[in-house]
């Protein structure tokens, strides 16, 4: 599904990702944890193709396609979905218009007919319900005036509607209370169908109680320094990142 090899990336000439390797097979859930500044969010931006995030070396392929050669929107159409930590507010563009455009862009890419307004509305209403957002959110500007939790749920709703093959959740748990966390986790779990894969970026083990990972990786100073199963997250929860030793101290400095 996703294969990252020796990835090096920089932002404004500062090296952030320094030789990252990661292989994800269909249906797997990989959690990425790590101290602040390790490059967790950067990884999502680099994979999605954000301007200003420059790849200096290495490769990344999704379903056999060279991701790094594609434009942002093409990566999305190939099945990459990034749920943002801080989704942007776009007043003046309604959530409905936005969701319809994106769903139909994906359909067009797959060679399917665009959904009619009525067909789309039906789907959107169901997705809205699934993440416990009132229907009038569809009419409001994209994320406009949404609370932190509502924005995160809106991200999950988009994920449900767009049916990507690889989902990167960038701290989708931050700022959520337990109830909202449950909603987000339920949304994610509903999309686990044995084929769709997930990268769950988080600071806290808490989210992983709800979304059970197959693998846990510790990212520090731009590299994966330790991998394990779900028990690794518990270890981090208990004793922090001190076991990282030198790499951790450097990244904290």
């Amino acid at each position: 599904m996703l294969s990252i090899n020796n990835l090096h990336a920089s932002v404004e000439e500062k090296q952030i990702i320094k030789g990252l390797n990661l292989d994800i097979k269909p249906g797997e859930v990989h959690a990425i944890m790590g101290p602040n500044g390790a490059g967790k969010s950067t990884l999502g931006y680099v994979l999605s193709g954000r301007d200003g995030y420059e790849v200096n070396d290495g490769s990344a392929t999704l379903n056999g396609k060279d991701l790094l050669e594609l434009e942002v929107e093409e990566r999305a159409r190939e099945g990459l979905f990034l749920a943002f930590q801080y989704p942007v507010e776009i007043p003046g563009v309604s959530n409905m218009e936005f969701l319809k455009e994106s769903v139909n862009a994906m359909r067009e890419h797959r060679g399917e007919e665009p959904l009619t307004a009525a067909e789309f509305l039906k789907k959107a209403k169901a997705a809205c319900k699934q993440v416990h957002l009132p229907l009038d959110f569809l009419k409001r500007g994209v994320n406009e005036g949404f609370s932190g939790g509502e924005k995160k749920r809106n991200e999950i709703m988009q994920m449900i509607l767009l049916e990507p093959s690889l989902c990167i959740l960038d701290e989708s748990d931050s700022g959520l209370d337990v109830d909202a966390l449950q909603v987000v986790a339920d949304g994610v779990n509903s999309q686990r169908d044995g084929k769709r894969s997930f990268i769950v970026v988080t600071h806290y083990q808490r989210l992983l109680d709800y979304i059970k990972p197959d693998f846990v990786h510790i990212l520090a100073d731009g590299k994966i320094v330790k991998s394990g199963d779900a028990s690794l997250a518990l270890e981090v929860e208990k004793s922090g990142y001190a076991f990282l030793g030198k790499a951790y101290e450097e990244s904290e400095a």
Partner: protein
Amino acid sequence: MSQWLSEVIAEGQRQTDWLAGHRQQATEALANIKWPVRRQEAWRFTPLLPVEKRSVSLAAAVEQHGSAPVIDGLDAYSVSFAGNKLAAQQGSVPAGLTFTLFSNANTEQQATIKALLSQVKPSHHLFGQVNDALMTEGVYIHVPANTVIDTPIRLSQLAASVGDQHLRVLVHVESGAKVAIIEDGFGDADSLNTFVSEYVLDAQAQLEHYRFAMYTQQAMHVGSCHFKVGEKAQLTSNIVGYGSVLSRLDVDVEYTGEFANANVNAIYLLAEGELFDLHSTIEHAVPNCTTEENARGIVGDRAKAVFNGRIHIHRNAQKTLAELNNRNLLLSRRAIINTKPELEIYADDVRCAHGATVAEIEEKALYYLLTRGISRSQALIMLNFGFIQELITQIPNIAISDWLLHSLRERFVSMEVK
């Protein structure tokens, strides 16, 4: 005085047709004016250098010119002009009004035209005087009292490379009458085009007016629309500007009767390196009139837009309601907007508001839409076209609204964000 202006005067004096008297007044005035330099407020941001060095070129007939784009679904009487001559016409003159070409006017019509000419247009417009001196074709439209004309009239000016054009339009909408008139201009050929229109709206007249200055590249355009709006009359004017080496439009609205209103919507969409300058002046000379003016523009790389919107509320013009708003989006650090909304208020019981904003493309929002698979061009339209689209969808004529939406979207998508 510029070389060009001396030639204009000489050429105006040479003409000996039935408009000679009118031309002479203009040439006399032109002989006494100072050629505008950039210290002069009216031309501060729009240099006239490209005009100064030109020669006057009035070809009787031009062979090469484009045609006005078809507006699908628009059922209009359409007439287009190139080189000051009728180039094409389509449809027939709607029943109920009279449509007279200056070149075909009989003695009686000539007298009517002469009596109306320059009665609406303020004399301070330099290029208005040039049009007075050099016009060789014009249109006079008369809509008798209480006549409702359903078929719009479309007048197109086609810029052509061997002939400058100085087209004049005179429209008299009598009391209680209603009509829609579309004035547009197209072409990219090296030429100078003036297009001056004057409108008299009698009491309770209704005018749906359009002016699309879609000249591009080397086609220079200095045009103007002037309106006198009578008691309880209603004017809606929808303006669209593209830019060329020099494109300038002056709009003057003067209320001559109470309880009248004007709604002016202007859009400009400037591609790389283009210049468009819109000056509007609304004269609230009488009480109880209402003005709403919205000018919105998108300015591309190295392009320049100038907007000067003046609302002048005279001492006795109590109970005036006036709103003027200008919004701009710059697509590059090298895009320029010079905007100046001006309210001059001498009455004390009025409600007025004015404002101007300038924004840039929101990179974060664009990235967000792209990560959802939306194409770059569609994302740009969703993010940045809305405020223009809003004005287009208000246009009462669906065919024109659809055509504009399509044309402007296409133009916008082809513009680069830098």
